[in-house]
């Protein structure tokens, strides 16, 4: 029997136990890998923009690429009004991307494969977007739930559906990222287990699958960070440009 594929998701404490009342604030492997990704983002962008050359080096090119990518995504999906929110969306994208990518390294821990992390990010986005919407439009923001051009008979039904879909945004946003990362890593582990259990003769086929799946997972890690950021932009667009 191969080892449990869920074993990789266990959060354990590193160092001393820190307690604040009933809340456990100890430093865990999850916080360690969050710290690693935050530090690597800072180091990457700092080194990339240290020498601002006209003809960029590799690192500068890469950081400019990320900047342009996110700037273009925001202006395409949420318009020019969303420009002040660029730093937030950029840091969100980079954090999720680096957490996913660092999780792809063997023996590392994927922070985003825990629903509590992604749910916190999603609830933060949800509350921020709602507050922004009410600040920009006052109670007119509630018009988001009453689409125009709908027959009067259907309107009560549509409004209820719109409210439910609005309230389920944080859930779908967080579960999408969490499920993708967790399912991917479990799948890799299961195929890794097949390689061991089939031995030297039959293990080559799952090994090939494992390599292909690792490629797919790297694609998914990037895609999910992209989807997380672009959905934040779409929600922000709803709040900033109200024309439903």
């Amino acid at each position, binding site marked *: 029997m191969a080892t449990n594929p869920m074993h990789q998701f266990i959060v354990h404490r590193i160092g001393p136990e820190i307690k604040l009342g009933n809340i456990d604030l100890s430093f865990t492997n999850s916080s360690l890998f969050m710290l690693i990704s935050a530090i690597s983002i800072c180091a990457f962008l700092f080194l990339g923009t240290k020498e601002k050359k006209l003809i960029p080096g590799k690192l500068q090119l890469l950081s400019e690429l990320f900047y342009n990518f996110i700037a273009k995504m925001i202006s395409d999906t949420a318009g020019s009004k969303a420009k002040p929110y660029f730093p937030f969306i950029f840091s969100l994208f980079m954090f999720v991307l680096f957490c996913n990518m660092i999780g792809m390294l063997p023996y590392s821990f994927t922070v985003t494969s825990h629903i509590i992390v992604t749910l916190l990010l999603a609830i933060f986005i949800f509350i921020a977007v709602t507050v922004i919407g009410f600040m920009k439009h006052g109670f007119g923001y509630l018009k988001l739930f009453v689409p125009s051009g709908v027959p009067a008979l259907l309107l009560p039904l549509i409004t209820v559906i719109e409210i439910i879909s609005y309230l389920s945004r944080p859930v779908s946003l967080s579960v999408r990222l969490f499920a993708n990362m*967790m399912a991917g890593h479990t799948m890799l582990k299961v195929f890794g287990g097949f390689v061991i259990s089939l031995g030297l003769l039959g293990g080559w086929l799952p090994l090939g699958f494992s390599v292909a799946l690792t490629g797919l997972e790297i694609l998914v890690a990037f895609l*999910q960070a992209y989807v997380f950021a672009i959905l934040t932009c779409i929600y922000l667009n709803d709040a900033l440009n109200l024309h439903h």
Partner: protein
Amino acid sequence: MELEAAKMIGAGLAAIALAGAGVGIGIIFGNYLSGAMRNPSAAQKQFPNLLLGFALAEATGLFGLVIALIILFAF
């Protein structure tokens, strides 16, 4: 029926949701390809939308997988 066996069956049933994700991803890529064959110059512009659709379709299937894992490990 024993609880353990019922759990296994329930988890297996919940994983059927992934069939829908497979169909959805197939439709997305198939339609993208046929659209790109008709008008190759517009294909590059729609590539981000393709990836977005792929990720959204895949995620709906994975919700079912999460239900399966919740049945298996959380109860």
